[in-house]
């Protein structure tokens, strides 16, 4: 079988990606799994949820994150590029004054932070933001 140069380079890149990027590839599947476990595969709207995260975080050990989804009953935070995608889930009770919560999280490196809100009517909303991290927070 003959192979074009383009195919050869492509295979080489795929092998390199599999070799160096394995945790990330494994994690993409894990992210989808975590999202599916929360939403049951439902469609997600992009509005009605605000995720506030720094564009550049100097220290990946403590990255301030704020999420606000008016009317939501639960909000899940995910970090796509961490060894484990789940970060935390906020479940709001009847005495909650708003659907806003903020916390500080760890990020292993530059990656996308995902927030998904579950509304009382069973619909879902999501927001994503990319965060660049100067010093990773997983102490590899």
């Amino acid at each position, binding site marked *: 079988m003959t192979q074009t140069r383009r195919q050869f380079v492509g295979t080489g890149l795929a092998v390199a990606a599999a070799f160096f990027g394995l945790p990330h590839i494994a994690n993409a599947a894990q992210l989808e799994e975590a999202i599916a476990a929360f939403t049951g595969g439902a469609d997600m709207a992009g509005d009605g949820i605000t995720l506030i995260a720094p564009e550049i975080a100097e220290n990946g*050990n*403590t*990255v301030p994150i704020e999420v606000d989804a008016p009317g939501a009953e639960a909000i899940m935070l995910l*970090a796509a590029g*961490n*060894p*484990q995608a*789940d*970060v*935390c*889930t*906020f*479940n*709001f*009770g*009847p*005495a*909650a*004054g*708003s659907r*806003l*919560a*903020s*916390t*500080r*999280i*760890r*990020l292993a490196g530059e990656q996308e932070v995902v927030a998904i809100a579950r509304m009382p009517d069973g619909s879902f909303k999501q927001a994503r933001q990319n965060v660049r991290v100067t010093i990773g*927070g*997983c*102490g*590899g």
Partner: protein
Amino acid sequence: MAENVVPRVRVPRDASAGEAVSVRTLISHPMESGQRRGSDGNTIPRSIINRFTCEFNGELVIDVTIEPAVSTNPYFQFDATVNETGTFAFTWYDDDGSVYTESADITVA
């Protein structure tokens, strides 16, 4: 095993009825993620706070499920609606089975 775990909460001293007050909580805890390796090259076992709840007069304000990606000394800020004078009860659940509690009073005019 986590040592010197100290919960700290900040709630306004008084509020008007029906007001949404901002609640800030922090607990000193190493939140060992289970990803790090010690000087002997072995993985340090996971030891985190896995759940945090806040109730006001027995009514749930927020219940947070926590994974290792939450930073050392987990900090949470959220809002609570207060309709009457009462007490906030905060509870943190550790992986090792320990439960840490803290409370704060608020006077509603």
